[in-house]
């Protein structure tokens, strides 16, 4: 967290658009809460932790908005903060051995009534849901880092350099995690991996 809010980490080329976006916490919430929630929820597999982390992340970003200088996108910055918060929470929980941890992961079956109909037929919607469920199951066997990087790349559509910025990892490390994640998903979806 200290790293994320350190002004020295990010160059000072702050744009007015970014500044005004960070100055309005409601706009920040509207723009990024859902994406952050998805990122943290699927990275950790813990819905309660995800909501807590997203809440803290938005608040910390707002309070530390002066330290953001626009070297990366706002979402990359937020993802970096969220990643650090997840590590902090998990480090705290690791010592709370008396707590019965019951993870409540995201449940795609909740989306039964809100799937985008578009032009697709009900059969296609059911098929799409099944494929998404397969990906979800495949992600469950991955490590947290692999899941995070997979979600950043394929769900949030972040570029590899952005992922490196958000995670603080080397490009080769990111690619290795990504490769393992893709292999697991490919195997689950029915590929030849």
């Amino acid at each position, binding site marked *: 967290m200290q790293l994320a809010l350190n002004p020295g980490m990010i160059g000072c080329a702050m744009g007015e658009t970014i500044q005004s976006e960070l100055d309005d916490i409601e706009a920040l919430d509207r723009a990024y809460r859902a994406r952050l929630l998805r990122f943290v929820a699927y990275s950790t597999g813990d819905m309660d932790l995800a909501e807590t982390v997203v809440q803290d992340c938005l608040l910390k970003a707002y309070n530390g908005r002066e330290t953001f200088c626009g070297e990366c996108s706002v979402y990359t910055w937020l993802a970096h903060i969220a990643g650090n918060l997840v590590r902090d929470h998990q480090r705290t929980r690791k010592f709370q051995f008396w707590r019965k941890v019951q993870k409540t992961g995201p449940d*795609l079956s909740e989306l039964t009534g809100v799937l985008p109909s578009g032009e697709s037929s009900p059969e296609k919607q059911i098929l799409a849901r099944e494929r*998404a469920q397969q990906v979800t199951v495949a992600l469950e066997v991955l490590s947290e880092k692999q899941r995070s990087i997979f979600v950043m790349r394929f769900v949030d559509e972040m570029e590899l350099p952005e992922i490196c910025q958000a995670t603080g990892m080397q490009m080769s490390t990111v690619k290795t995690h990504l490769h393992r994640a893709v292999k697991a998903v490919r195997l689950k979806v029915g590929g030849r991996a």
Partner: protein
Amino acid sequence: MMEAGSTREGKRVEVHLTDEQFTELLIGSRPAWVQAHLVECAACREEAERVSGAIGDFAQQSLLWAERRAAFRPVQTTERKPAFAWLVRPQAWVGAALTIALAVGIGMTLRRDHTQPVQQAAATSPADAAKTQAETVQPVVVKVQAEAKAGRATLKADNALLTAIDGELRADESTPASLYGLEATSYRTGTKSVKRTSN
């Protein structure tokens, strides 16, 4: 990965994309030879479409799910609350005052309920207690005494009646003493003195 596949023209393809190449393909890195391979290899092309389609479905549905979940969350407050922010709220003070008043009221009520009988007992003096007791008991005693007096009078009258009857009965009987001219003169007194009667 050296599996056989077929091209659109029906030619067999001996080499497919490796795992790393497949990952590069999904990431978006598409060298020319990969593009050419996908054109020729139906199996790799189909697999790439299937996996990327599944990931796309996952991304779309997870975003819908997250938007739905986020819609139920309240918007953040703009400032961080201090640790004892509740102290500056007037509602907190009013609530605390009401709570204290309620607690004191309940305590006083309970205390009064507990001490009232004791205080009442302590407030009465022995003279008052005796007076109260006498006032309460006197009518009962008078009544009992009257009943006892009436009972004794009745008993006395009954005894007198029975004695008279007994005397009359004894007077009618012929006793051995009367046969010999003897007459009990002091029967009631029990002196057993016998007086000879003259025949």
